[in-house]
């Protein structure tokens, strides 16, 4: 695995935020790697463990616990649709369905262990996320780091067009 120098420098800087215990930097380091590589590979787990003087299992324990870390490659644009109550009441399931239709994503294989579905062309990937804390403006979703609120299911195509 080739971690670019500037990413490693950023990681090293992040580690200094935790003067008491390097282990505390596990999440920030994983975030940096995921931002760069798109997901957390097995190699990345071992890289982080070595970086923080930990056993790889210590890192795998985290990567598999937090849904914020992906273990498979997402699309170029990764969509997270809020599934939780207020958004569901405003139509987040319909939004999910529409987005999948528009982006040609097949979610039939999605399971607890494989929550992410990727479009055939690899451009979009999608998953349900639990409460994104914008319950007053549902349904909401994140596309990569962009937050979108009050996304009417009927306008799913419009949302995707922003990422052409």
């Amino acid at each position: 695995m080739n971690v670019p120098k500037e990413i490693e420098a950023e990681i090293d800087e992040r580690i200094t935020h935790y003067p008491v215990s390097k282990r505390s930097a596990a999440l920030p380091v994983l975030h940096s790697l995921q931002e760069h590589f798109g997901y957390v590979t097995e190699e990345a787990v071992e890289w982080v463990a070595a970086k923080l003087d930990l056993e790889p299992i210590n890192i795998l324990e985290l990567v598999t616990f937090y849904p914020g870390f992906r273990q498979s490659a997402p699309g170029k644009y990764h969509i997270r649709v809020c599934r939780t109550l207020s958004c569901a009441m405003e139509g987040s399931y319909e939004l999910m369905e529409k987005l999948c239709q528009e982006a040609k994503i097949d979610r039939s294989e999605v399971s607890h262990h494989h929550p992410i579905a990727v479009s055939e062309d690899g451009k979009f990937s999608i998953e349900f996320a639990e409460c994104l804390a914008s319950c007053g403006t549902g349904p909401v979703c994140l596309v990569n780091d962009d937050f979108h609120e009050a996304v009417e299911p009927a306008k799913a195509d419009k949302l995707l067009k922003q990422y052409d």
Partner: protein
Amino acid sequence: MSEANDKVNVQIDGEWHQFPKGTRMIEACRLAGKEIPHYCYHPKLSSPGNCRMCLVEMGMPPRPRPGEDPPKPDKDGHLPIQWIPRPAISCANTIAEGMGIRTDSQLTNECRHGVMEFLLINHPLDCPICDQAGECRLQEFSVEFGTGGSRFREKKVKKPKNVDIGPRIRLDDERCIMCSRCIRFCQEVADDDVLGFTDRGSHTVLGVHPGKELSNNYGLNTVDICPVGALTSNDFRFQMRVWFLKETNSICTSCGRGCNIIAGAREDKLYRLTPRDNNEVNSSWMCDYGRLNFHFLTSEARLTDPMILEHRAHRIARWSEAVGRAAEKLKEFDASKIAIIASGRMTNEELFMARRLGETLGIEKIAIVPRSGEADDYLVSADKNPNTRGARLILGKKVDKQLKEIAAGVKKGTITALIALDENLLKCGFEEDTLKKLDLLISSHILANPTASLSHVVFPSTATVAEKRGTMINRTGRLQRLNQAIDPPGQAMDLWEILRDLAQALGGSNGVYLLEDVFKLMAGTIKEFEGLSLGKIGDQGLPLLKPKESIPLLERERERIEKGIIVG
């Protein structure tokens, strides 16, 4: 602080008791004769309080509100108890003055029933083919707190089965109840942070990182402390149902530590060794090497009959004939020409009988074969003989050094007769050619070996592990008892018996009939044993000699007890 101040008054199921300050609730209840069911709690490990099986109803004296009168004590001086509606875990909480605990109340029982049901809903009910059956804590507590049927109508969570997590251990994740005992053992005791939980919630699975394995020399302890059938030993699984095993308390003889063990056997076959608690020796653990070092008992090379060399070939002989032949031959030698090679693997009683034989014949050259290897930072001692200290006490301090002199004597021809007890001389400085020069070689062995092949008389002896009774002194000077779990194969006999018979054949009746007689003689001869008997030693052994080394694992455990991390 006076003694009274160190004690805390606690009411358990209506009865008041006193326990030392800092006692965990679960331990206080145990001392009061009330076992609290539990899964995650282990006195030698930290307490995460995750299984929730040990929840109990708990109460404290009421705290008066401002302006309210303080509660009045009863005639015995105890304050009333205000019971708390929320149950408390008894494993991690310590007792407090005036506390009340109900181990059999409606609330406590509801908690236990609830937790039992939860633990079983996703657990495969494959007890008939589960290796843990018979010693499974789920089964055990199901009897008291389970129900006949299941209300669970859903699909169970699927998890990995039959996972190879190391050379000696197999994992069934569906059976795992996530108590984390094994993880904590690896982290806290074995310093091998190799196990972990991945995923989360109901999907949580125990495992090792891909490419890593649980292979440390203490790994099998995780199988012992696993309360269910999630972790099983490759060596023991499917060999025998545990309820058929006859359990015998003994000690491990693979090194000078003398870890206390339970030998599990059925019909003269030993199936497993498991550690037995002894906080002065091995805590609750033992190494995998010692644990598995018993399969040679059923080796094809096992000697089962006495043998006599005649016409360049060994033939089977009766005991009386073999002993007679050996005695007859020994009489032909001047004592100065005879030497005895004893073993640090022999029991004190056997060593004492070797000494008696030497005294009977006037032999001065007596040695043991030193065995040193690597110590680890846990339990394993560098001394691979289980009873070096016993040998030095009984045979004298020179026993280690005399081996070289004897080897030289044999080479020079000044020693022409040799008695070798349970030692293969070719592995301790003797050469085949020189041994061939000997006029007489008498030896005892557990397994056939080149020394036996060269011997004029060969005695089949019993193995220290599981086959004999006796005592040994470990590296820390503790006198401990071995007990016999199985009958030895064929005609094999304990060395103390062989030596008794030989001495008798040489010098007439010596009044030794039982092992107890040997111990009595020993206690009358060697001052360290004065006043002792096999019975007095007990299952936990006795400190006899000054410790020659400290036990790293115990040192660290004591530190954790001091810090209150573990109960100990």
